[in-house]
């Protein structure tokens, strides 16, 4: 946090961020995807790298590299928008009937505050249940850069660290 800010300022800021992230979770789980898109800046970047099993002393090999290697997601707002539109067609079979999704968001931390941006960390347990008994648990961490755009917070960067190597789900139709 900027040095001068008081504990109370920091607390109020954190509360703002937390509410923002919880509201985001509501929009997703209530399938209000178009409103969810509005939470992203135009230049937003949304990225989920792959993970490998490597020796403890070679951590640099664990994650695939941004902009070079393959990943689960490497999106701008344009492709996020297309994903949303696809769901809304009503014939995106992987989400028809719609999944029952729950974003349990925890461990929210404001790591650093700059004039117009904050670095935020949080953790997720995304629960997906669909059709009859199909169930997935996707658990991990998020590193966001939130930017204040005329008074409102927007997601400018989101890095998602999924705690799996082989993906234990048939697809990733949910958002993180």
């Amino acid at each position, binding site marked *: 946090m900027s040095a001068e800010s008081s504990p109370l300022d920091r607390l109020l800021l954190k509360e703002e961020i937390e509410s923002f992230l919880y509201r985001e979770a509501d929009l997703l789980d209530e399938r209000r995807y178009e409103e969810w898109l509005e939470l992203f800046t135009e230049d937003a970047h949304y990225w989920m790298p792959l993970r490998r099993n490597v020796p403890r002393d070679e951590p640099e090999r664990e994650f695939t590299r941004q902009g070079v290697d393959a990943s689960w997601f490497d999106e701008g707002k344009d492709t996020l928008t297309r994903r949303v539109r696809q769901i809304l067609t009503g014939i995106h079979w992987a989400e028809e009937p719609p999944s029952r999704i729950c974003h349990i968001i925890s461990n929210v931390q404001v790591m650093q505050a700059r004039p117009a941006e904050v670095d935020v960390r949080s953790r997720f347990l995304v629960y997906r249940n669909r059709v009859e008994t199909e169930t997935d648990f996707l658990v991990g961490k998020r590193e966001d850069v939130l930017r204040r755009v005329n008074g409102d917070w927007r997601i400018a960067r989101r890095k998602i660290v999924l705690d799996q190597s082989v993906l234990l789900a048939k*697809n990733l139709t949910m958002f993180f």
Partner: protein
Amino acid sequence: MSGPTSGSLDGGSLKALVDVDRGMVSREIFVSEAIYRQELERVFARAWLFLGHQSQIPRPGDYVVSSMGEESVIVCRDASGRIRVFLNSCRHRGMKVCRYDEGHTVEFQCPYHGWSYGTDGALVGVPFAKDAYGAQLDRARWGLIEVAQMKNYKGTIWATWDSSAPSFEEYLGGYKLYLDLLLDAWDGREGGTEVIGGTHKWLIPCNWKFPAENFSGDRYHGVSHRSVDMVGIGPSGKGRRDMGERNQARWLDVSFPDLGHSMIAFLRPHDAPLAPAYQDAPIVADYFRHCEEERKRRRGAEWRLFGGPGTMFPNTSPLARQPRTIAAWHPRGPHQTEAWRWYLVDADAPAEVKDFLRQYYIRYSGPSGLTEQDDMENWNYAHAASRGTIARQYPYNYEMGLGRATSAFEDHGLTLPGVINDVTEANASEHNQRGFYTRWRQLMEAESWGEIATP
């Protein structure tokens, strides 16, 4: 006891289950435990399987772990630079010797009792060797279990456990022309491809043959992908891919029933100009236009041919064009498949081109791909709905385009190998799938490769 020969089905029952001539295939072969066990023994323990790409292990001592059937294998370059493939299981008590996905090493030490193996598989280290074993242990006989045959084909690594299996060249046969559509550089030079770092790996709740047959030549499931076609993720901003070149081409379902391989292919008119593509990215468009011209120069009439998805029997699926990928469908029980996906680019393409393609590949492919998410959903519930007592009494229908294929395809003097079904008018056929199951039954019936006459 589920030993090597348990539950093996005689030809008779298999013939009843797979009647390719009438286009009928029983659901049993997708859901039966016994048939699955026989597949592990008669298909996956015998066939040539795809393991990865040499660009994953450039230097001696580099290794990457891959999979053959249900089993883990180590693919590494030995000190001499030769690529070797070993079962990832210690000879002493079976411990998984290497639990890393990739790395660099001089030896593989087993974490249980410390036997260590060189990158050539030799048992090089045995604790207390002299005192505890003396002459009892003949080290030469206890190295890592190595595949019977290995082949590096234009950078792609393949292997089989069966020494009596035909050579890779024989096994590949006339399919070479089509596989090369994936593996040769876009400008027509031999080889010259590499994989992007990172392999997609994920689990699909369906039998491995659903993806294998789908990729073998399913032009028919447009309904699956209508939603992505509506929103558009293609390299020119519309649809799933650039359709210009396809629309002016002849559509060919190419199958090698006696090999089991097949591909969706296209043949350009002999006299047509290049259709526009990659219109979202001028640099990329220029690159490919340039490559096509080079290719035309190098390959002549053959240049007219370009590829789509296909399956090289049993479980490897090259996708030659848009998006340019290769997949392996690893069996994980009759009801589950572990999919692995590699993404290919010309090794010497400009960074912008590689970057553009990478982004296109992953928004299209795999569990996060807008296109293939719907394939997984369909395979999942097609499999699930086929398991029941009643459902299993009704075969699947593979009648589409029966009896329309030719073994002597020719177009303006250009002949093509394989049994070919021209579906330009029909839009689709199940010619390739029938070829896949023809070979499947052949391997499942045969006691050994000896029984199978090589074409």
